[in-house]
């Protein structure tokens, strides 16, 4: 493992951006590890959440934004609830996703593809059309066998709607997304 030069890996702008956007003071973290201890998804992470926090304190932008962990966070708020320093860790993770998306860095493409499919559905219909989301996801990823095993379980229950439930204010929702994109590109 290489020696890390703390001075050269430190990106102060990044630290400030995370603090500003999340409203959380990263210096409050004293590395007790409670967020990691309680994280249900820690087993799947490449960098444990407390180490994400430590890397943030060190200003290691690449390390954090290139991690898979930030995409696997389930937003369950265990970390936030148990943090002895009242840091809303889940919100920090959210903000890291925002910054990573803005910079086009996504280490878990499947996750964002699914989310994008979800939002595309909302944009189009105003409400989510579940079958449509899965179909879109399958189309984009090519994972045609996704949950095929569940089909016989769910099909007879008559729950999956064959058609989207459009709303009257569909255009209004589309405008929200449009303005969001305009703001973003500005």
């Amino acid at each position, binding site marked *: 493992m290489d020696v890390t030069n703390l001075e050269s890996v430190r990106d102060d702008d990044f630290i400030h951006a995370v603090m500003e956007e999340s409203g959380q003071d990263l210096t409050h973290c004293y590395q007790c590890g409670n967020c990691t201890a309680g994280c*249900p*998804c820690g*087993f*799947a992470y490449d960098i444990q959440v407390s180490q994400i926090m430590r890397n943030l304190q060190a200003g290691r932008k690449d390390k954090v934004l290139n991690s898979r962990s930030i995409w*696997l966070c*389930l*937003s*369950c*708020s*265990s970390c*936030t*609830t148990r943090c002895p320093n009242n840091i*809303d860790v*889940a919100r920090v993770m*959210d903000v890291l*996703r*925002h910054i990573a*998306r803005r910079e086009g860095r996504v280490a*878990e493409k*499947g*996750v964002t*593809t*699914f*989310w*994008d499919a*979800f*939002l595309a559905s*909302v944009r189009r219909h*105003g*409400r*989510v059309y*579940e*079958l449509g989301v*899965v179909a879109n*996801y399958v189309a984009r990823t090519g994972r045609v066998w*996704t*949950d095929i*095993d*569940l089909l016989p*379980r*769910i099909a007879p*229950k*008559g*729950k*999956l*709607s064959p058609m989207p*439930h459009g*709303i*009257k*204010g569909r255009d*209004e*929702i589309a*405008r*929200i*997304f449009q*303005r*969001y994109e305009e*703001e*973003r590109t500005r």
Partner: protein
Amino acid sequence: MNLAYYPGCSGLGTSREYERSTRAACAALGVKLTDIPDWSCCGSTPAHALEHALSGALSARNLVGAARAGCDTVATPCPSCLSNLKTARHRMADDGFRAKVGRLLDQPADALAALPDVQSVLETLVTRVGLDAIRAKVRQPLAGLRVAPYYGCIMTRPADVMRFDDPENPTSMDDLLTALGAEVVPFPYKVECCGASYGVTRRDIVARLSGRLLGAARDAGAHAVVVACPLCQMNLDLRQTQVEWPGGKAVDMPVFYFTQLLGRALGVPDAELGLEQLCVDPAIAFRRAAQVVAARQAEEAAQAAKAAAQAAAKAAQAKQAAAANEGGRA
């Protein structure tokens, strides 16, 4: 108090039975639900993971709609919707955030300053209707039914936004189920995450986390898991065939929405509660409950018989002794 109702998108699909049972149970309890006119999706996790203002705008449109309809409170059955609506409202106190959201919406930003309060249907039932009132209306107690109450991870957390029940050990659903006559088993994973929406993209995560929950319910001797969240229900029920059971021992564990059990206890016909739409056959749980009741009755009968026999023996003894005395004297 005017209560607006926000059903949430999954109520139109995978959680139809939650939606149906919620409406049926509320009707039985006299809670009037007024749907927010032309409600739209809150954006769920995909939106807040992309950008907070976008998420805020998608939520706010619905809250503004509720306010325009003259409602001061919005109730929603889905914790994910709840979390988004509540968080949006919470953050709207910040002027900068409000302005940012305002720029995305058709509605003027000043409409965002005073948004209606948001609560879960569970909160509505336990705080507005009250357990005593519910208890009084129970027609068909859930006797013998052992249930593991599973609240899901975001119903009560983060505590400063959600402001309902204990964030680590909530008890409102326990109390409700107890009021319905069910037996609540100690369940340590009330608020542990089930894997959320990662079922499609990372099945391994859901398999492991939901497996742990189902295993704990199994080990605690539960006949069923009771949930308040469409996503949790889907992971635990539909995906039950996908999970990793701790110790490898799979069982059939029915997973109810709490509103289904509430409706059943209140005497709402099963057909209105969508019980047939659950994947794991709910009859399994009711059968087990019936066995418990039967065993208990047999036990009681045996006890009663034993006590009666003892009493009879005692009486006979006394009689004999008396007779002996008599005889002696004679």
